[in-house]
């Protein structure tokens, strides 16, 4: 059975164990144990009912773990060897599991790690590799997260907002190892959308699909960035984009607008343009204005200034930029772009150099350095 197909079952199995009264932390360990056993057991013969198989094996593992734990603590707790009836998890159980893993008392990095393991069924090693952290460190992070959740009690879990923030972080973090985190975030958001009746969850899923659809053209094979305007649009994944647009339209029709739907609408307008010249910048600015109603952050205002520059010309973009806090990351990069567009080449060249110095990542630093070099070279030849 394919790894992802096996992992699809994880939240169901775990929620059944938790519903039967198993302590969350131990149940999660037991499910991991069952997944590992499934790897070898299913190689020879795949069970007719994989979910039932996993539930049975995980429950036995849970009993064993509880017994050894009980022996250590010298306590007398007894569990029946045979699991109680009821192996069909409900949508509510799955949703509850998402909420637990995004518990508001967890730090963002702990919630991310716990969600990937307890809902996503990834191993600690895979999560550690994905986030470039040593495995023992990740093991500790997950173990602490589980005890925080166990202590905080399952009665006051997070809500769908905190879950969406966690999934967005997984998607947007950008690291990539053996595990494709963006694809994993999409898988988990799809699963969430199937059980949570919320327009914003669908908006988030649409946002992810629309960005994922452009992924192949976002970077060159050497890892360098290709700006949106220069991307080979024939290389975009039209199926993902079409799916994202359908999901977004259905979400928008519910008339419960939120920040993820607004962000997805902006991504959809970019995806709609088969050539960059056809981009509907006026509508994009309108969506940024909508987005500001939900998330009035300097980053949104900065991106809006770029859109204004395209819709109404560089001077209007620079005027919009003047109202943005100039400490925000990528401010210099946007200023450089708008000044170049406005014909202030010396200013732009200087700002590109600043943008390179302040870039938050290597790929952007290299990109801004190339921009500065390109303009400086041009200015030397055309004094």
């Amino acid at each position, binding site marked *: 059975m394919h790894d992802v197909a096996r992992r699809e079952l994880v939240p169901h199995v775990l929620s059944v164990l938790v519903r039967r009264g198993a302590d969350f932390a131990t149940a999660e360990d037991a499910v991991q144990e069952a997944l590992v056993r499934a790897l070898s057991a299913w190689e020879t013969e795949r069970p007719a009912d994989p979910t039932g198989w996993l539930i049975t094996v995980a429950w036995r593992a849970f009993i064993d773990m509880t017994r050894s734990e009980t022996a250590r603590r010298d306590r007398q707790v007894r569990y029946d060897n045979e699991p109680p009836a009821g192996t069909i998890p409900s949508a509510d159980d799955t949703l509850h599991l998402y909420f637990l893993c995004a518990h508001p008392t967890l*730090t*963002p*990095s*702990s919630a*991310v*790690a716990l969600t990937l393991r307890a809902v996503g069924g990834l191993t600690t090693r895979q999560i550690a590799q994905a*986030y*470039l*952290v*040593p495995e*023992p*460190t*990740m*093991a*500790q*992070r*997950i173990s*602490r997260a589980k005890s925080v959740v166990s202590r905080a009690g399952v009665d006051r879990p997070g809500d769908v907002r905190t879950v969406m923030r966690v999934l967005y*972080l997984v*998607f*947007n*973090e*950008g*690291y*990539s190892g053996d595990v494709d985190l*963006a694809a994993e975030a999409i898988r988990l958001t799809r699963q969430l959308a199937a059980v949570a009746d919320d327009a914003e969850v669908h908006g988030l899923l649409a*946002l992810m699909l629309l*960005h*994922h659809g452009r*992924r192949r053209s976002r970077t060159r094979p050497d890892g360098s*960035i290709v700006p*949106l305007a220069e991307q080979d649009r024939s290389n975009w994944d039209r199926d993902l984009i079409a799916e994202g647009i359908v999901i977004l339209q259905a979400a928008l029709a519910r008339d419960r607008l939120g920040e993820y739907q607004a*962000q997805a609408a*902006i*991504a959809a307008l*970019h995806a709609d343009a088969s050539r960059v010249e056809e981009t509907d910048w006026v509508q994009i600015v309108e969506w940024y204005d909508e987005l500001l109603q939900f998330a009035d952050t300097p980053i949104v205002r900065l*991106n809006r200034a770029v859109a204004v520059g395209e819709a109404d010309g560089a001077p209007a973009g620079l005027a919009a930029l003047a109202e943005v806090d100039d400490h925000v990351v990528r401010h210099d990069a946007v200023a450089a772009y708008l000044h170049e567009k406005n014909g202030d080449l010396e200013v732009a060249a200087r700002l590109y150099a600043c943008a390179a110095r302040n*870039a*938050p*990542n*290597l*790929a*952007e*630093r290299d990109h801004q350095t190339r921009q500065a070099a390109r303009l400086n070279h041009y200015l030397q030849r055309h004094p």
Partner: protein
Amino acid sequence: MAKYLLLKHYRGAPAAVNNIPMDQWTPEEVEAHIGYMNDFAARLERNGEFIDGQALSPDGVWVRSAGDGRPPVTDGPFAETKDLIAGWMVIDVDSYERAIELAGELSAAPGAGGTPIHEWLELRPFLTEPPTVTD
């Protein structure tokens, strides 16, 4: 979700508050200092915030290529004026504020007289991967 480098200097950093060099401490003070550093790293591991920690020898040389087919040129030992790194710790934390907090704790390691050194540590953010959502 953000990695930081904590750099400790043999020299080149501004003077610490408790600035008596380690070779003039009592053995107990040295032990207390080492114990503090080990406890600090162990605590970070338990928190799931520890990535790496290493100490460096003060000995070192400059190295550069000498051109095709020739062995590299070395120059050393370092001049007394060179900024000299003593070691580092790499942490993975949720916020800049947390990184500052941890650097502050590390700087408070005990020195001469058992009182905190309050040495200056250099805190440097890692350059990350680019985010997925950019527009």
